[in-house]
């Protein structure tokens, strides 16, 4: 029983404009070119993984799409507009290492902040709009399977529970594009699978385009439509089979790379050189 405005927003969704288009794009951070000549397209309803070794510029891509980092060359269009102009329609989950144990804020409050936290003015709980917002929050929390623990302090929850609430936060405004930066990081295997499944379901049910950054493709490979692989200062895109292959990665790195399949089906990339330029995203979150 979705709230009416939210449902109408989904029905009226523009399903023809590409969610993300980059052509010949480049980004510099501190005078270094992180990557260049990157061209890619993400369509509505697609689940795309952004792969690559640490420091290759995966989070940089996310920040460029949010308009937090300018392009130094090429062009970008996010939901048919320049990066930064469409922020209200993007759900963003930054890379992080969990809330600290003393974080005294409830899960539902975090989700609610995702809905109207950017708005100035005093929230009055007895207003009609506030009741609609409360209902919307409950609905999204429920859809992410987080109702049982949403009223506890976020710091007391497990990594998997926190991640479900953060995905709910990213989803609460009914975005058309979800940017999830390492949502599977620091989760155990069952939780990785559960969160990956949740993302796939959201992607299908709501027609949202999802770009999911990860350094390990294995937990999500069954759910993916396509893969963007960032390495050696540029990026390639294609289906998981095309991209995560010895041939494509060797061409990308211009060095011999082997992709091996373990007996359990997991892919292992062998011979991957260290990232040439590490730019501190990992510890800054």
């Amino acid at each position: 029983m979705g709230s009416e405005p939210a449902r109408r927003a989904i029905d009226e969704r523009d399903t023809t404009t590409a969610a993300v288009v980059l052509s010949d794009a480049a980004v510099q951070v501190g005078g270094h070119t992180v990557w260049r000549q990157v061209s890619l397209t993400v369509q509505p309803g697609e689940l795309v993984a952004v792969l690559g070794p640490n420091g290759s510029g995966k989070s940089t891509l996310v920040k460029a799409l949010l308009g937090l980092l300018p392009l130094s060359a090429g062009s970008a269009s996010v939901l048919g507009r320049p990066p930064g102009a469409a922020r209200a329609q993007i759900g963003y989950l930054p890379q992080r290492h969990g809330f600290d144990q003393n974080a005294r804020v409830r899960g539902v409050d975090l989700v609610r902040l995702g809905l109207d936290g950017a708005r100035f003015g005093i929230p009055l709980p007895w207003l009609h709009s506030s009741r609609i917002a409360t209902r919307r929050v409950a609905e999204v929390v429920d859809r992410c399977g987080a109702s049982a623990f949403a009223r506890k302090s976020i710091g007391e929850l497990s990594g998997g529970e926190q991640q479900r609430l953060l995905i709910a936060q990213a989803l609460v405004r009914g975005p058309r594009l979800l940017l999830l930066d390492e949502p599977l990081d620091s989760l155990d295997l069952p939780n990785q699978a559960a969160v990956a499944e949740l993302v796939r379901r959201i992607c299908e049910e709501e027609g949202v385009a999802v770009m999911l950054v990860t350094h390990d493709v294995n937990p999500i490979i069954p759910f993916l439509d396509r893969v963007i692989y960032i390495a050696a200062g540029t990026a390639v895109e294609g289906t998981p089979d095309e991209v995560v292959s010895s041939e494509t990665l060797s061409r990308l790195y211009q060095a011999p790379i082997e992709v091996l399949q373990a007996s359990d089906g997991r892919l292992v990339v062998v011979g991957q050189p260290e990232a040439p330029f590490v730019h501190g995203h990992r510890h800054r979150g």
Partner: protein
Amino acid sequence: MLAYPFMVNALEAGTTVAIMAGVAGWFMTLRRQTFAGHTLSLIAFPGAAAAALAGLPAAVGYFGFCGIGALALGRIAGSTQGHASESAATGTLQAFALALGFLFVSLYHGILSGLDSLLFGTFLGITRGQVVALVAVAAVTVALTGLAARPLLFASVDPEVARGGGVPVTALGFGFLLLLGLAVAETSQITGALLVFALLVTPAATAHELTSRPWLGIALSVALALAVTWLGLILAYYSIYPVGFYITSLSFGGYVLVRVGRATVRRRVARPSFETAH
């Protein structure tokens, strides 16, 4: 008690200060900026001493120095990378402020009781003009904080997502330090520079212990600050001990009670669930 104008002034000033300290303190505790708050309170001391030296009202010194101090802290926060160098720079500022305060006091050659009340508070000398200034500053800042409350909360608990959603995180951080500076300047005028935390931190920390609901927490923080201020003023009126002592002890007592209570409840809840889980 209310027949004396000085007591009416004290109660009005105390009420104003408690409201402002409750709100600013709640956000300060959430943002883990108690060290910045402490530094601002020590900056209040040379402010008041300098005002006395220059023959100006103490309030001018408090507001002036704390405002400038907040701007300086904002610059430090903006220009340093990482928490460690920020707190080191803040500590440096703190020591300098304290030294400056003693310099002004010794230049002034004032009576010792003057120094006492700068550091530990007084409620006897609060004038009508002072009350009006306190109310005016508090009304403006609390109203502005109310308007910015949601984005400020967002930027405090989740700065990266807030920035991604278009919240001006850096500007809000700067604005908050300014609010904190003014709150410290107000509170110093009742509790003295050293006991500012009795109203700024303790009620807020108690509220954070009691609830993780944000709006309820702010209301609770204000309510606790009001309660200890009123009780402290009444007790000080009927006894010979200073008001700062009562306010500090009352809020400390409340904090200890709540912590002990919560630990007991948690132990009681934890034990049976441990047994059933295994």
